[in-house]
């Protein structure tokens, strides 16, 4: 297992460097906006682009970037979106809002989703199962921003229970902040609940009809004991990686939900960086999410071995 993990880590670093280099060059290959000849600012912009080294060979630019990151952990300054500001500080400053909203969302969604899935599986082919499954399909089919608008209209405007926007400030764990996050959390949760419900139901339904479950019952276990001790454990081989995935998604943020509820997170940062050709922000966010994604896949793969010892990581047998 250790050898496997080390091997994967090595490959991960190689892939990370390749992706970083590719993105670094590709974003710079996008043409800078044409400078209107009649605009007197064009001259200064042209000089500034020259001073920024945009006209130097890409590999020369990448070399300096890599040197600054490796030796000083300096990701550079924003040139467009947040002029003159350290991009690392901007990124780190915006992460908490995204993380906390997503954290609340999955803490709410996963237990509910799994519980509904178990309930539906246990009540398979009853009206309860049909109701849950139908609702799940409906919820999965509708994008989360639709819920966001509906929730905002009903709970914030009509009923006035919650504020329209997430509260300003960095008191992330205060009660007013929590209340202000509820509409965004609810909007994000519906889809996650439905996803886990569907997965759990499907897996559990299959496991419940397995022969070993029959054996467990014939050996005298109650239905609840057999389900909890054997069926759930088996279906978690599929569910746990999904939970890991959700936790990793905490860092990603939802562009549209953050926009609707004014969550000052990282949701739109990468897209805005591409649109504004803010190279340093783009590269930082790309590197960050690439690293997180690669690490997550490693963790998920390794987790299989812990969840189900029958799965041997790195084994050639």
């Amino acid at each position, binding site marked *: 297992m250790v050898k496997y993990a080390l091997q994967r880590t090595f490959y991960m670093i190689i892939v990370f460097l390749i992706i970083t280099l590719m993105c670094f060059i590709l974003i710079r290959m996008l*043409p800078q906006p*044409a*400078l*209107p*000849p*009649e605009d*007197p*600012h*064009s*001259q*200064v*912009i*042209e*000089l*500034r682009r*020259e*001073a*920024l*080294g945009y*006209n*130097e060979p890409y590999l*020369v*630019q990448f070399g*300096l970037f890599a040197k*600054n990151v490796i030796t000083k952990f300096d990701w*550079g*300054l924003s*040139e*467009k*979106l*947040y*002029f*003159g*500001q350290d991009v690392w500080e*901007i990124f780190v*400053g*915006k992460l908490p809002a995204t993380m906390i909203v997503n954290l609340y969302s999955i803490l709410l969604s996963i237990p509910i989703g799994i519980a509904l899935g178990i309930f539906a599986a246990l009540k398979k082919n009853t009206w309860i199962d049909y109701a849950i499954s139908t609702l799940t399909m409906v919820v999965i089919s509708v994008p989360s921003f639709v819920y966001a*608008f509906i929730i*905002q*209209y009903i709970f*914030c*405007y009509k009923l*006035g229970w919650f504020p*329209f*926007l*997430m509260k*300003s*400030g*960095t008191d992330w764990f205060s009660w007013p902040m929590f209340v202000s996050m509820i509409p965004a959390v609810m909007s994000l949760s519906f889809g996650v609940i439905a996803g886990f419900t569907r997965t759990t139901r499907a897996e559990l339904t299959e496991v419940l009809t397995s022969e070993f479950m029959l054996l467990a019952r014939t050996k005298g276990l109650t239905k609840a004991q057999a389900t909890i001790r054997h069926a759930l454990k088996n279906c978690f081989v599929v569910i746990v990686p999904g939970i890991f995935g959700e936790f990793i998604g905490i860092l990603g943020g939802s562009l549209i939900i953050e*926009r*609707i509820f*004014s969550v*000052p997170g990282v949701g739109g940062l990468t897209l805005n960086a591409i649109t504004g050709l803010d190279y340093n922000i783009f590269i930082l966010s790309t590197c960050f999410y690439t690293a997180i994604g690669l690490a997550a896949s490693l963790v998920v793969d390794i987790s299989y071995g812990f969840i189900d010892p029958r799965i041997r990581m790195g084994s050639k047998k």
Partner: protein
Amino acid sequence: MKRIISLLLVLAMVLSLAACGDNGVTPVVSGDQGGQNEVVPVNPEEVVEVEGDYIYKDAVSTLATNWNPHTYQTADDLYPQNYTTDSLYTLIFNDARHPVEGKEPFEGYMIVPAMAADYPVDVTESVKAEHPEFNIPESATSGFAWSVKLRDDLKWDDGTPITANDFVGSLERVLRPELLNYRAADYYEGTYAVVNGKNYALAGHASYLDNGIQGVQIEEMTKNEEGQYTYDDGKLVYIAVDYSLDWLGGDTLAAYVDAYGADMFGMDNWDALLALADQDGLVPCTDDNLALLSSVTTANPAWGESDAELFNYLALYESSYDADYDFSNVGLYAPADDELVFVYSSSLEGFYLMTYGMNVPLVKIDLYDSLLKEEQTASGSVWSSTYCTNVETSCSYGPYKVSDYQLDKSMHFVKNENWAGWNYEWINYVDPEDGLTYQMYQTTEIDTQVVSEPSTQKQMFLSGQLMGYGLQAEDFDQYRNSEYYYATPAETIFFLLFNGYETEIAKREAAADFDATTTDLQTQMLESFRRACAVSIDRELMAATVSPARKGGYAFLGDTYIYDPETCAYYRDTDQAKMALVDFYSIDLDDYNGDLDAAVDSITGLDPVTAKEKFAEAYQEALDLGYVTDNDGDGLSDQTVTMVYAMSGEMSEFYRKTLDFLNSQLNAGAAGTGFEGKILITPSAPVGNAWSDNLRNGQMDTQLAGWSGGSLDPFGTALTWTDPAQAYWGNWWDANNHDMTVNIDGTDVTMSIRDFALALNGTPVTVDGVEYNYGYGVADTEVRLDILAEIERQMLVAYNCVPIMQDAGGSLLSQQIYHVVEDYNPMLSRGGIQYDKYNYNEEEWAAYVASQGGSLQY
């Protein structure tokens, strides 16, 4: 008693004249020219004390991220500056001319000293004598140098005094060459910039002129000993191989060659030519190098150029800026802590002097310097700053200061108790609503939130949580007649474009997948067809149908342009501008008994009779030219005249309505002619930002494209329309090649439309050995209006485009607040936050909203 009053009046007049002196500026007052021109200070005891909290709750879709006056780049970044800065002179409503008892609404405005202690004093003579470095012309006697005394109570929000040296230091920093500040050009370029600013800001750099614009023919140049061409007594000429050319829309030849390669250019010698380019992308212009260039631009017929057009690719060396240029030569200095002297390269006075001419981007020097940071780059280094990017790095010298800021989330302002403005003599005013006297800025705090979604803004507004809501298209039916509705006009005019690029249209028609039996692209090039289209569209109906906030557009300039800000005189109100419209729309003045206003009011853009006549004429012309056929003899064109609408994005409700309306109106106009039901504007695939390039290069035909200019400079906008590098039609219609004649002082003057536009904006133009300059301060205003109206008329009758709509916005104002004026004023809008008054304080407002069930009716 009468004698005493008369004597006092005479004495007052004498004193006021003496105060102005020979060198003083006369206060600028707009609107009704009668009445009182001076600010009448209000007795502080008359000022009504207003108790309570008044929080202006605002929403923006994008929050400012950098409000450093030296580096900000977007309108969003200007937002905080509206509250945290001040100026030497400012505009106020001329309420002093409207006595309390009348309660007349404000109409005009006046310029008053703000940070300045008094109006500027002309010191041209003394500066000319004492400061030769400013090169004030020997003949100049006034308008080139002005002294301004500062108030002695100016302070930053932390209480630190502001002195004249802060102004000078701020200008030095914005222009400092190594900082490469984005806003530097605002202070070194143009008529209103102080002298020598450009020399300092661009120290160490060279500048070149684009010969595609200058038009110096190679035959007019001479060669030096090295064989390099020169012009204008020895200035060197280069080939702009990888150097931005204005007439290529700011692109370089290299960019075009990279993009199109052998499809458009001869590539045999391209690499050799490119290899010769220096770091600026320039190659010395010699015969050998011209031969290389010729092999690139003339070898491939697809590019369609000959040696006669090589001059377009040349860059003319203009000047080098001395690397050691000293800021002491720049036209702003401080003879004392409370005095500034501004020096200009041309004569300035009045409104432009006190607004644009004396605009200095003030920064708190010690804080600013501490935040500068040099970043290493692949080319060396570049400077940046975090000044004015958060609360800690901000400094205010305006009525409010930033008290809280969260990136991309919210911003909060509170009153700046150290603002000198609380002592300005005009800070108290008479409210025409109730006739009482108030201090400006009743708003105690400003709370600004990022609210990106219009639906959220609307719900928040209706819940009493925002002060205003910008109406969306779907809201107009419901709220257009609300008493809280305010319409705000804007400058942009939207035009329907036509494609006249004959060679490109021919290429498109020659394509294998083009069906010439059913489709025609050429008819749109006919003037008769375009004229027919122009009078087939009811402008107001189109605006109401497609974009209800907007209104009909009838000319190149809308009704918001002010040609004389000192009197707030609108260009569209002039006889010249009205006649241009009457001529273009073929209105017979006799039908209106010579009443020009009535004639203009009658214009809707729709003239079915003329439309039918012109479509019939166009049909016959198209048949004669073989653009269309009528093989079945049904009297209808076999082909549908098709214009491809360049779509920047996916099909939206706006696009769908626009296309449906245009197709419906054009075909209605063509009813009864050979083009009945045979005109189609069809959408392209989405092309993003490339839509304008597609129109310029003739690959697509039309769009509802917008154009605008500075609302106080209608004359400057003529430069844009007539510049082939900027015009959509630059590839097939050039204002340099079309002459026009204007009778000036009894003499007919004829030159190209472009030359007239240049001369109108202060560039001397020589025609037949005579130099013409009709710039501001050089030519009489009436002459300038004559020229501008004629340029506008000429551009209209060229039918490269047809004006369709004028931009505007509509919004609702919260019941918590009211404007002291109802009518929109381009200079002061409806007064801004300094004049906004509250019907309820926060406590009362919360109770009122609750009493309405939490949802307000508008």
